[in-house]
């Protein structure tokens, strides 16, 4: 299948972006980045709907009759079509790509899943509301919980032995992630991209993992602080963002509007700092007053009915039992 099916549009269904990123999901980011590196005429659709995906995950790549979801399969398909960002890699470098992808999957992904889905503060404050808001109804009730369980499974399956505490697994996951980041940092060195001046699939995948950690407003994340300390990796992410995902004029306009709205909301809340609290208190007071009036005026009465034990009670304390 070497013919370029340029007639059929290549569509990539992804999670939408936030925090200056084209998408918040690692796999989606990697797919989008690779397409941009290779100059693929892709149409990116932020559907936020993993329902139709055969694996239950985004991204979904549709090209004519082909449907792929796994990142490696997407890359393979694109390579077959002749769009490759890896065409200038040597064989050894190609092998390194595979090895480093495995490293990221083994060592970094658990920490990413942990920060996103298992760390309680971030899950409650950031992840769940974000995915609940982004997913279409009725998936917004179902998706966050399901992914949280899967993340939990993935992170804790490496437990091995009953007497290993959760915090030990977390410490280990974090430590390995930091080592992984260090390894990436060494590998990148002073270069612009991992294999010279042109980005490769490895850069796409690394970008997919690192950009969310860098940009998302996580609180108290050791992973994020460690990443921020790795200068060359931060520069890599920003470089890719600036070069391949420059903000469009519409996006800049939206950002400006958002900032204005936030500023206004802040001043509003300063004037009436407890608006919401007052509303609730007022409601409770009114309701209590109505209920009290109803009782006092006899509109509502409560009866106490003594129900005799007609049927034998199912549970009783049997003092004569001897075992």
């Amino acid at each position, binding site marked *: 299948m070497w013919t370029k099916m340029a007639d059929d549009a290549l569509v990539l269904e992804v999670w939408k972006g936030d925090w200056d990123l084209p998408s918040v999901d690692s796999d989606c980011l990697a797919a989008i980045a690779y397409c941009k590196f290779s100059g693929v005429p892709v149409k990116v659709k932020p559907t936020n709907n993993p329902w139709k995906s055969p694996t239950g995950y985004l991204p979904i790549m549709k090209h004519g009759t082909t449907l792929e979801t796994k990142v490696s399969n997407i890359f393979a398909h694109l390579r077959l079509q002749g769009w490759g960002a890896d065409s200038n890699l040597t064989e050894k470098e190609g092998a390194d790509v595979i*090895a480093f992808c*495995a490293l990221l999957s*083994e060592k970094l992904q658990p920490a990413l899943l942990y920060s996103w889905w298992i760390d309680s503060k971030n899950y409650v404050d950031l992840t769940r509301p974000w995915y609940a808001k982004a997913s279409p109804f009725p998936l917004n009730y179902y998706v966050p919980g399901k992914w949280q369980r899967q993340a939990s499974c993935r992170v804790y399956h490496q437990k*091995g*032995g009953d007497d*290993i505490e959760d915090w030990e697994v977390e410490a*280990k996951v974090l430590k390995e992630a930091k080592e992984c980041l260090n*390894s990436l940092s*060494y*590998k990148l060195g002073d270069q612009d991209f991992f294999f010279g001046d042109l980005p490769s699939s490895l850069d796409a995948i690394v970008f997919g993992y690192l950009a969310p950690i860098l940009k998302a407003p996580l609180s108290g994340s050791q992973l994020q602080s460690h990443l921020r300390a790795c200068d060359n990796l931060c520069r890599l992410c920003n470089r890719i963002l600036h070069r391949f995902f420059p903000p469009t004029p519409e996006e800049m306009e939206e950002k400006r509007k958002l900032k204005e709205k936030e500023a206004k909301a802040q001043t509003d809340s300063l004037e009436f700092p407890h608006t919401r609290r007052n509303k609730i208190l007022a409601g409770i007071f009114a309701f209590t007053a109505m209920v009290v009036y109803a009782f006092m005026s006899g509109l509502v009465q409560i009866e106490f009915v003594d129900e005799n034990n007609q049927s034998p009670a199912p549970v009783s304390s049997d003092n004569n039992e001897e075992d």
Partner: protein
Amino acid sequence: MASLVAEAIQAEIGATERWPDNARLFQPYQVEQITFPDYAACLSIKTLLHMCGLKFKVELRANAEEMSPSGKVPFLQLGAFLISEVEPIIAAVKTRGFHLSADLTDIQKSELKAYIALIDNVLVNAELYLAWLHPETLEQVTKPRYGSVYCWPLNLILPWRKQREVKLKLVSLEWADRTMEEVCEEVHTCCQALSERLEKQQYFFGSKPTELDAVVFGHLYTLITTELPNKAIADVINKFQNLVDFCTRVDQIYFKDLNNDY
């Protein structure tokens, strides 16, 4: 107690510890009981220790898996410390002053870690898949071996329980619903990467062996030489001549010439 607990997982015991004379490696019975995924791990460790020139005694126990602090074999007893699984053992060996990859550059060390992760990611899971999810191998090889040290009815119950456990692990890693062909494809990609990395060198990082060489040898040798009903994975590996030569070479130098047991 808390510090020992952390160390058992991290296995970064102080660098002042020496290698004790009574180091023992515990594993299940080699001839009748051990399954080939566990055997690959044991062989990797043994190769590493031979490469470092370290003395140790192999203890065969039917309950090695239950004795292990993390439930996985092999595990190493160094004095008062018990360390199990390949990576913590590598770390423990390092902190006792036997660092095979000490001369590598930082970039090379990163690459070493990446390739070991690749083995973990692909070969280990492929071995588990073949041993516990492939019906023929499961019934003919794995279950009889795993249950061979137990009497009835434990010899039926325990392999069944282990199989469920392994399946759960592979489900969480999304390996469980792959077909044999897909597994072979993954192994092919992995071996291709290894082969391209090795090229014509003697070892993966030049002329001196490193931890990666030990791990690669352990897994590839097991997969090539174990008698199994399904030879698909062995065939895939055999396509890469430099890998096969590598295995033969390491086998010759560290086992046959030194008269070491497998």
